[in-house]
């Protein structure tokens, strides 16, 4: 066992650190950096992305011929670890570079790769992903958005949902049904969609917590040229699975929820009617339990990084992280709000320093138990794909889709 980087990775880290110190605007925590609206965020992200691209840090694990860094996934993660010490604009390019571009490289024609990959890496074009639909969440293959071939084009009608970044994206990966008489999974095809094309309408979704981090995308008679098709007609399910597999490479990503360190930090400062919160045995026990979970998950990330270094791709066991961390964040947030007594009914901004993060975990923790695979689906994944338990009987996969859809 050895926690050090390999010599070559250590050198990469040192160089990255030096470059970041010279080019990244503000160290995290020293003063606040905010992007008040999408336009400002996108402009800042574009500027930062072009700086990284110039230095070979824009897409470290992607091939050099398209402007990538030609490095390893481990180096990609090392750079992200270092980058997260700075207040740089995150959230604009992650989906494009993490999921869409690898999919284009895996499935796209040479023409598609030439047209799109370099521009995505340089930051010139922003990408999003249009898979989920109102009636196709956990059961993605139940999607109903239709693409009908008309001459050399496909005509798309339908509705997508939970599309992050749709409002500022240039292109998206679109999964649509091209054959309703085929079975559920066999009738799908994966496309590139121009998000500026006529008939594409993006509407923000208002969330429980008032935020608008996701969108609905309405598609009415949107024309997609056949050369934007990424899989053979009917081969979209396997294509979409390729995209989702790349999501797992996002090892150790911070999902922005509070953990045991926040609980320790706040409870050490918090005076309650019965004394300091960190002296309360009930709080102390939850501190320990939360630490056991989040520290354990961090150690499991080390194991995944070890496997990555050995050339193994992260498997379905990765599901454990979000499964544990999201409901724990909800639990810690509820505990901390309880500790404020009657004040626990106030919004986070009224509770003082650090409490907005608590409120966010109270509200967004609920969302994170759903987004990217519900708790229930993740337990199924662990049971079936890690432990080898049999799938439940179902009969929706063998009939033509148009006979099954209720």
């Amino acid at each position, binding site marked *: 066992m050895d926690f050090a980087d390999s010599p070559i990775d250590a050198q990469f880290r040192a160089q990255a650190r030096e470059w970041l110190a010279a080019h990244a605007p503000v160290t995290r925590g020293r003063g606040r950096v905010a992007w008040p609206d999408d336009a400002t965020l996108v402009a800042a992200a574009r500027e930062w992305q072009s700086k990284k691209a110039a230095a070979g840090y824009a897409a470290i694990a992607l091939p050099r011929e398209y402007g990538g860094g030609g490095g390893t996934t481990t180096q990609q993660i090392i750079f992200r670890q270092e980058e997260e010490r700075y207040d740089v604009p995150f959230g604009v390019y992650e989906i494009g570079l993490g999921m869409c571009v690898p999919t284009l490289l895996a499935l796209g024609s040479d023409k598609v790769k030439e047209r799109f990959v370099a521009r995505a890496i340089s930051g010139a074009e922003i990408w999003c992903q249009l898979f989920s639909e109102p009636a196709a969440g956990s059961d993605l293959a*139940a999607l109903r958005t239709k693409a009908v071939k008309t001459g050399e084009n496909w005509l798309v009608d339908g509705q997508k949902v939970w599309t992050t970044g749709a409002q500022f994206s240039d292109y998206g990966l679109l999964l649509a049904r091209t054959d309703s008489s085929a079975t559920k999974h066999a009738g799908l095809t994966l496309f590139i969609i121009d998000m500026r094309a006529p008939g594409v309408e993006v509407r923000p*979704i208002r969330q*429980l917590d008032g935020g608008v981090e996701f969108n609905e995308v309405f598609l009415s008679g949107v024309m997609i040229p056949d050369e934007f098709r990424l899989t053979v007609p009917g081969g979209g399910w396997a294509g979409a699975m390729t995209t989702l597999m790349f999501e797992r490479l996002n090892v150790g990503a911070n999902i922005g929820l509070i953990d045991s360190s926040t609980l320790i930090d706040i409870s050490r400062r918090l005076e309650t009617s019965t004394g300091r919160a960190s002296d309360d045995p009930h709080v102390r026990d939850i501190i320990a339990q939360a630490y056991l979970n989040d520290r354990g998950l961090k150690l499991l990330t080390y194991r995944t990084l070890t496997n990555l270094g050995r050339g193994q791709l992260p498997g379905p066991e990765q599901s454990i992280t979000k499964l544990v961390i999201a409901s724990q964040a909800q639990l810690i947030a509820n505990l901390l709000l*309880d*500790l404020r007594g*009657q004040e626990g009914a106030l919004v986070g901004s009224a509770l003082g320093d650090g409490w907005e993060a608590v409120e966010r975990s109270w509200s967004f923790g609920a969302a994170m138990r759903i987004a990217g695979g519900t708790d229930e689906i993740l*337990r199924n994944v662990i049971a079936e794909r890690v432990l080898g338990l049999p799938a*439940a009987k179902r009969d929706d996969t063998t009939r033509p889709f148009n006979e099954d859809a*209720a």
Partner: protein
Amino acid sequence: MEFDFSEDYRLLADQLRRALEEAAPLEAARKTVDTGQINVTAWELLGEMGILASGISTDFGGNGLGPLPLCLAAEAIGWSVAAIPTASLYHATPLIQSCGSPEQQDRWLPALASGSATACVATDSALAVEDDHITGVISPVSGGTGASVAIVRANNQLWLVDMAENAVEQEALESRDPGRQLCRITFRNTPATRMTGDDADLALNHAVVCVAFEQIGGASRALNGAIDYSRERRAFGQTIGSYQAIKHKLADIWTKIEIARAHAMYAAWSLGTGAVDLPLAAAAARASATEAYLFAAQETLQVHGGYGFTFESDSHLFYRRARALAACYGPAVEWRSRLAARLIAGETTKH
């Protein structure tokens, strides 16, 4: 053995629920998240149905029906997630009834019974008093915005402050549940009159029992919504309600609600009969109902999947209200601690 509400009460409960569903539909509760407005129609309805007057003796404009109708109303309020100043009804009114001087009762109870006045209570903070004038800050106060009268504690006694006095400053606070308004009240040498009783516990127990019914009402509505949704929503070729993960979650929610309801019913009986085991019964009702609503709101949101996280869904109404009610008289863990102390000391219930 007759451990249930009588037929009359069950009819009343139905009436209350139906009336409040109409006066305070969930769509109104959703609007309140943005406006923070009290539902005046619902409040007036409770007045018309005699609920506001039920805890007040007939001498002072009440109908003397006792606490049971109010408990049933509280359940219907929880069911409809109505935005009304319940602290006046659950807590302040019985406190003036039990501890007010005859003059105070005469001045305030008829107005409370008719609904023309509301009152708030903040007896946790110790304020300074000098020559019958109060100075200090109470915060956060539930239902303080717009209250005509406040009950506070100073010099270890209860005082009543007429909020029309101009030396009172009110500042609205931002609540996570705008349907339950909170505010900060600053007294600066404000005239106050002393209350003659100083046993605040009966009214506090009255309040938490009412809140327990409200929590059970909310949890039941959240459960019903999740049952309906899981019978409609399909995934992998079946309705999601046919999957054990959903089934067992909903069964667990139901179990918590049923247990909490049993405790609340016994506490209501203790309240109605003046049984000596009210403190034990009220603590049990408070602790179990708080847990039941928090769990029900959280897990029924989960059952709704992504839709449950949208503002358009009902889930967040329950999620907000469950948190507001968990905070309003202190968290369940504190009540469990009180309960354990009584049990270890050997206290038992009558039945």
